[in-house]
């Protein structure tokens, strides 16, 4: 039943995406072009990376609100390591990713060791990590990176934006892990019944620790891409990105109560949101109109899929 309804939601969402693409193409002839669509991929990479890790976390019934702050912290650290400590840029970027990963590990430890509910734990670290970014940076930006660094955020590989490759690889690997491996199974088991998972000898704590750490990692990876895309660091980078990522994940059919969710769904959700943002803008609708519409789509998509599910099983 769950499997069937899951597929049903994603089919519905995919149809919605196709519909949106068709309608938006009629609104502007500049929308459905390869260049524009690839460019949209560039713009959604950071949110996409974070949303993929968030899918795992939400599927366990958890949540990570601190991703935006980790992004900010890792962005700052990239600059600090390179500029202030004089590390070579690749090393600096890796070190910054390590810091972000550690921040995620911190979340994981608070959640698993102290049994703090994820929402509360990450609300607290949302403030803490952003504060660290501000404190460490002392409100200074680091700019003037060498040109090769911009390949990551502004360049292309085989005609496709570099970071889109990164997103693609991460998405494929993540969907294989979630769908076909023991870890994926463990994630769903934890999300559906954590106690039973523990009684079945699954390593609940280790899995959660790993997931929050992975979420820190993807946030930090997104940070480096972000820095490369905008060529500077700011401590307020990524503010509010957690809500964008969560929106994509729940639009993609993951249940906020855990036990349900797929990477495919999240990716379709992500594309739908990005297509609406871009297509509506090209059609001459301003940003505030667009976010209203995205809000409505979110509610209606979930409502529709609820109705389908109910009519299907009753």
């Amino acid at each position, binding site marked *: 039943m769950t499997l069937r309804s899951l597929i049903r939601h994603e089919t519905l969402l995919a149809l919605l995406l196709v519909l949106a693409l068709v309608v938006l193409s009629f609104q502007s002839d500049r929308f459905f072009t390869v260049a524009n669509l690839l460019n949209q991929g560039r713009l959604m990479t950071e949110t996409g990376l974070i949303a993929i890790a968030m899918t795992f976390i939400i599927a366990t019934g958890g949540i990570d609100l601190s991703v935006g702050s980790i992004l900010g912290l890792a962005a700052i650290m990239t600059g600090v390591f390179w500029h202030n400590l004089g590390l070579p840029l690749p090393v600096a970027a890796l070190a910054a990713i390590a810091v972000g990963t550690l921040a995620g590990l911190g979340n994981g430890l608070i959640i698993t060791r102290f049994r703090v509910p994820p929402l509360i734990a990450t609300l607290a670290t949302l403030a803490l990590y952003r504060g660290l970014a501000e404190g460490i940076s002392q409100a200074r930006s680091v700019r003037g990176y060498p040109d090769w660094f911009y390949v990551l955020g502004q360049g292309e590989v085989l005609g496709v934006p570099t970071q889109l490759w990164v997103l693609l690889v991460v998405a494929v690997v993540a969907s294989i892990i979630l769908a076909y491996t023991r870890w994926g199974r463990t994630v769903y088991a934890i999300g559906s019944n954590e106690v039973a998972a523990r009684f079945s000898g699954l390593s609940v704590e280790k899995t959660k620790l790993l997931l929050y750490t992975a979420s820190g990692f993807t946030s930090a990876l997104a940070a480096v891409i972000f820095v490369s895309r905008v060529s500077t660091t700011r401590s307020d980078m990524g503010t509010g990105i957690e809500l964008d990522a969560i929106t994509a994940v*729940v639009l993609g059919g993951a249940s906020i109560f855990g036990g349900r969710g797929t990477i495919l769904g999240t990716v379709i959700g992500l594309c739908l949101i990005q297509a609406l943002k871009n297509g509506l803008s090209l059609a001459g609708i301003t940003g505030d109109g667009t976010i209203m519409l995205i809000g409505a789509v979110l509610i209606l998509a979930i409502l529709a899929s609820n109705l389908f599910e109910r009519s299907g099983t009753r």
Partner: protein
Amino acid sequence: MALTGVELPPVRPRTSARPSALRRLMADYGQEIVVFAAIVALFVVVTMVNPRFISANNLTSIFSGNAYIAVAAIGMSMVIVTGNIDVSVGALIGVLATISGTLAVAGYPVWVAWFVPVLVGMAINGLIGILVAYGRIPSIVVTLGALSILRGGLISVTGGTWISNLPPEFLIAQKRFFDIPFPLITMVVLTLLAALWMRYFPYGRSLYALGGNPEAAVASGIPAERRVVAVFVIHGFFAGLATILFATQLQVIQSTVPPNLELTIITASVIGGVSIMGGSGTVIGSTLAAILFATIGSALIFVNVSAYWLRAVIGLLILATVLADMLRRGRA
């Protein structure tokens, strides 16, 4: 009673005495006590550094400048107690403040300008509640959507203009009664009323039942759907009252609300001990937590914490409160 008149089996002496009053207080209000202790500790420490901290003026600004957050957190706490959440309340307060100010400037009687937003807040949240209860959409999804709609709508409609030239009698948050600022009175009275209601009225208790075990609540004859709608409407009511405090504090009304206002309000609720899983927590806790945040914000300036590190220290203090609570519960 069911068994009166029936011959009961012989009563054996009770083997366990009731735990001491203190233990029970700690069990029932542990988190509230932790937060309260944190506030007291902050006051003591900061006052030692700078005695002006405890001056009447500063107390007034700490309490009344942030009272609207505490008032909004009352409704949020009720929503969370039922196992739901609302991430759109910040945007809602912005919308309601704009409505309130527009009415006041348009020359309607001030009580109209105060209470129309309360009604609108109840109506909008009622709609959210209906989607949650009857549409069976998780509240975080509905309110994420509502957040976008309200935020976008506010800018679309107002174009971002500020409302100024507010009539002086509209600015009730600046008034004092018995020399106590109105926001402070409102915060205390509403918190106490809500706390009593949630403790002593069956309707209030039913919210805990619903959050603790929805199926059991239905089996106990509690109409779950209606209660969910109701709790969102009540939350809208408190959001409306919070708006009155928010909108009448200054002589202008900004059409953008403080960034992350909803997160601040949710944080106040959960740090105050409202379980995010639903079913437990009190509004006294959320009000204390709102006061704690306000105190921290002011205290750090008083003890000259570098402004750059301010947010990090706030984050650490929040984390410390959370961990203290977990240690108290022996979970660590």
